[in-house]
């Protein structure tokens, strides 16, 4: 499903160039469950942003479902993001002035779906995530765990094939973090490819395949035998 070939990304941090991704080769199959671990600044987020077509590599190539997305222009990448990719961030990134329902339906709004259809799909998802009572609440009326569930609902409302989570439990206590992980795993169980960045080894261990990064390089790629 995903193939990265010699992907490089270099950032300029002051005067010093930082190699955020250093010739990364990676293949990910459909339906896989990966965790990405490593020290802070090792390039985990940069890798995730690359996979999510938010960032562009300096060199190297990237195929997503046999499309060479590293050759696409800005608007085409936006279309691919919309169709195939869901993002979950540590900071939730909910729009504070919109209700939970309005936040969740945003991807459908962007693609111009009709309000009736949006409502039906959001209702279904809210029900499933146990958020139906909170549909009309604003983000600041929700707990951290609830917010992240709303963010996940927004990420999967268009049924993407790839779900990218950057430290999704980073701002949560262990209990609600646990709930969020279970939800993500449940979605993975239904076939969505899940890539999750985490600094928590216990969380990372749950994944069937685990990557370690350091200084922009993939240093370890571990896979459960029975997967």
């Amino acid at each position: 499903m995903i193939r990265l070939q010699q992907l490089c990304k270099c950032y300029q941090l002051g005067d010093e160039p930082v190699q955020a991704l250093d010739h990364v080769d990676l293949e990910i199959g459909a339906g896989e469950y990966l965790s990405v671990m490593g020290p802070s600044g090792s390039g985990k987020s940069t890798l995730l942003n690359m996979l999510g077509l938010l960032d562009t590599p300096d060199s190297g190539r990237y195929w997503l479902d046999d499309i060479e997305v590293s050759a696409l222009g800005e608007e085409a990448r936006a279309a691919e993001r919309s169709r195939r990719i869901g993002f979950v961030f540590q900071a939730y990134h909910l729009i504070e002035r919109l209700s939970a329902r309005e936040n969740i339906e945003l991807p459908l709004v962007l693609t111009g779906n009709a309000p009736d259809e949006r409502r039906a799909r959001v209702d279904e998802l809210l029900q499933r995530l146990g958020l139906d009572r909170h549909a009309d609440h604003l983000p600041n009326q929700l707990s951290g765990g609830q917010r992240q569930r709303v963010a996940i609902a927004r990420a999967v409302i268009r049924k993407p094939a790839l779900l990218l989570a950057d430290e999704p439990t980073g701002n949560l206590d262990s209990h609600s973090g646990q709930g969020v992980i279970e939800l993500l795993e449940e979605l993975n169980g239904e076939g969505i490819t899940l890539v999750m960045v985490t600094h928590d080894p216990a969380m990372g261990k749950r994944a069937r395949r685990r990557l370690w990064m350091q200084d922009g390089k993939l240093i370890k790629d571990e896979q459960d035998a029975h997967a």
Partner: protein
Amino acid sequence: MRSTDYLRLTLTSLKSSRLRASLTILGIAIGICAVVLLTTLGEGLRLYVLENFSQFGSRIIAINPGKSQTGGTGGLLASTRPLLVEDAWSLRQLPYAEYVVPVVQGSGAIEFGRRVRYTDIIGTGGDMAAAWRFDVARGRFLADSRGGYPQPWAVLGHKVKQELFAEQNALGQFIRVGGERYRVVGIMAEKGQMLGFDLDDIVYIPVERALSLFNRSGLMEIDVTYRAGTTAEAMAERVRQRLIARHGVEDFSLITQDEMMRSLDRILAILTVAIGGLGGISLVVGAIGIITIMVTTVHERRAEIGLLRAIGATQRQIMWLFLGEAVLLALIGGVVGILFSGLTLGLLTLAMPTLPIQLSSFYLLLALLLSALVGLISGVLPARRAAGLNPVLALQSE
């Protein structure tokens, strides 16, 4: 993305920063209000002036002494001969000539018994009342002397008569004009003001007597009206030829009512545009307000922009979102400004019913369009900036 959703999202954004949005809207409203008010007043002034001038009829040619150099009342040639009363009378015989009105104007004391009033004194001929469409209320107007020195007759404007005689009969009474004895032979009907000039506060005396009273050798102006059937240009040419024949050179200037109206109209139209432009300055200030607010908004909502990009928004969609917000701000400002200027003009017409001001829906539509344009122009820069943000950096900016 649907336009209703653009509108909905933009409105939630404006609602979430109400005070800031209101102030920006106010800025545009003031600008639009200034433009609408000033152009409407300018247009009203133009109509008012033109109306005032056209009350004299349109087939008039005015002759002034001296050759104007670039139109208007330019410098006089050294060889200028005065315009004589005889010049005026000679124009009477021209084909199509209807009335010929020699004019000398001055001012002086008008005395009746022990009452004194200082007024304008116009020396003219017998045609004036008919030519200028001034009605005589009682008695008769002046008569032309035809060669001899005219009788000391005077005709009083309505106000002069009221001031000197009140309800008393004035006809046949003797008054003093500049110290000389005159007999009142007529009283003009009330005429009102024209451009601030009181047409009722005038005393009319025969032009020859006025010349000697003011110690002048020539007339200030000769007005010729002409009958239908000829053009202004042809008539002006006849007058020109006749006067050149008498003077030897063209040491006078002619202006037809048509030309005068046209140049007046042009001047007033330019004036209207100029004061409208003055209002435009406040619109520019309002536009700068929008730019400032939108730049701030874009900066504050970087994370939101990054998020929208992450969930698939295109750069174009981001741009329309912010451009739409700027246009909406300006449009609301435009509507508020139009309502406010309508209110002001309404009050103004209540206070001064004679002002010929009217709000035309065409201009209102234009004002609305103008405000939308202001929003569009001032929104472009911030919106492009929003669209051009790097989504990764934007997301990191919390």
